């Protein structure tokens, strides 16, 4: 296609949008509402995931070894654990190391435990990391079955609850987002269909003087794309401004518990690009599905 032809298509597309001003406005609004919700959902979901991952990093299973077990068997036991499904790594931690770690983690107050070093109340332990944090509970159950294991510990309740919440949020979010996207596509496709009915005669004439389907389709393609992309503008502004504000407040409050939100960059640029992309795809899809059946002349 030559440049001047492309120019002609662009001019045609914008003329048509102007002529069907109200319908264009309705389509853009539909995309705007959709993308607004989609972007808010995405920002929330990504942040839940991000926060979850910050906590997930700490998810480990501690399997304490029976005092009656002989240390020379530990190597075999470790291999048994490593052979389990979904287990990533198994580390051995002697009770002395365990105590040191405990003392260190308690800081100043830990000094008080130093006296315990001679009669260490802890047991030797294996520290198990799973492939996915979600597997923690299942793996812990397996580990518990071994005879040499005295007790298994992991962040039971909290971990499970956290993953339940994120999973539910994720699924609800995905369903809602998909529903909204389809609604917007439907609206755009209907908008353009309406404009096409009035242009039906024009299309027929164009075909009679030898216009290819592509030639006729291009302006509609551009129109749909422009409608979709225009619909992404407001959501991008809203999410950029809103997220910056929330980010500033949240980081002041959450800083004390060592949790942070996703940084504004790259999140906002990425979300913006995604919104433009979704808007464009919705628009193009909507317009092309509505032209299709008018081209069979």
């Amino acid at each position, binding site marked *: *296609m*030559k440049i*001047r*032809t492309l120019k*002609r298509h662009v001019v045609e597309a914008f003329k048509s949008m102007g002529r069907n001003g109200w319908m264009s406005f309705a389509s853009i609004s539909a995309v705007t509402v959709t993308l607004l919700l989609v972007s808010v959902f995405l920002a929330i979901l990504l942040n839940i995931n991000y926060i979850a991952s910050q906590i997930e990093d700490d998810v480990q299973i501690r399997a304490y070894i029976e005092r009656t077990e002989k240390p020379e068997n530990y190597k075999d036991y470790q291999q048994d654990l490593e052979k389990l499904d979904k287990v990533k790594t198994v580390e051995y931690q002697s009770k002395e190391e365990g105590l040191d770690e405990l003392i260190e983690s308690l800081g100043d107050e830990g000094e008080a435990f130093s006296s315990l070093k001679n009669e260490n109340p802890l047991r030797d332990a294996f520290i198990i990391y799973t492939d996915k944090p979600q597997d923690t509970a299942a793996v812990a159950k397996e580990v518990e079955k071994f005879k040499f294991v005295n007790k298994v510990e992991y962040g039971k309740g909290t971990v499970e609850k956290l993953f339940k919440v994120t999973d539910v949020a994720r699924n609800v979010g995905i369903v809602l987002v998909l529903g909204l996207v389809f609604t917007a596509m439907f609206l755009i496709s209907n908008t353009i269909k309406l404009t096409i009915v009035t242009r039906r*005669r*024009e299309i*027929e*004439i*164009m*075909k*009679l*003087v*030898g*216009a*290819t*389907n592509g*030639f006729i389709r291009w302006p509609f393609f551009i129109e749909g794309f422009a409608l979709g992309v225009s619909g992404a503008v407001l959501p991008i502004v809203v999410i950029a401004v809103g997220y910056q504000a929330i980010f500033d407040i949240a980081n002041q409050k959450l800083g004390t518990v060592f949790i942070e939100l996703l940084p504004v960059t790259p999140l906002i640029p990425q979300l913006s690009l995604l919104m433009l992309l979704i808007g464009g795809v919705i628009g193009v899809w909507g317009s092309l599905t509505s032209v299709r059946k008018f081209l069979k*002349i």
Partner: protein
Amino acid sequence: MIEMIDVWKTYPNGVMALNGIDVYIEKGEFVYVVGPSGAGKSTFIKCMYREEKPTQGSIIINGTNLAKVKERQIPKVRRKIGVVFQDFKLLPRLTVYENVAFALEVIEESPKVIRERVMEVLDLVKLKNKARMFPDELSGGEQQRVSIARSIVNHPPVIIADEPTGNLDPETAWEIMDIFKEINARGTTVVMATHNKEIVNTITKRVIAIEGGRIVRDEAKGDYGYED
């Protein structure tokens, strides 16, 4: 130039519009297609520029067998055939100039060539001074002249017209015929379905009469042959 071999057309609703048409039209000929209403004249014309696809038989135009043309290639075929309709089929939102230029934009002709050719054909149909007007500002005869200008602007070897004077008063009809005669004189083949007895009997040319989807008469210097 135009050849139809055993062409049949049955519409999806079962109407048999063409029932075995055989015809050969030489390059540069001027042919009237006559016959009563519903005889199949429009179907005959539509099959030539492939608005309708024959159920059976082959149509060869400008050396191309339409039966073998793929869907994608149809626009290319149509560019070599100028079509003129009873209802003009102009684009209402484009000016006279733009309507004519459209046939060249479709084939991505350069702006310079477009300007030259459009002015040239508008001159031929005597509408140069109305180039900036819109179709609804023109009389019926003028609109038909625009549509003729559009059909010839890319120099197709064939012009086909379906009752081009059907909506026009007699005087205007003669003006339109003058243009077709001029186009034909320049070497373009003209095929015209018409109901206009006077024109057929005055400007005598080859006459093909269709009745019930069959050619019932084909005369070199024929007359209209029906009482209207």
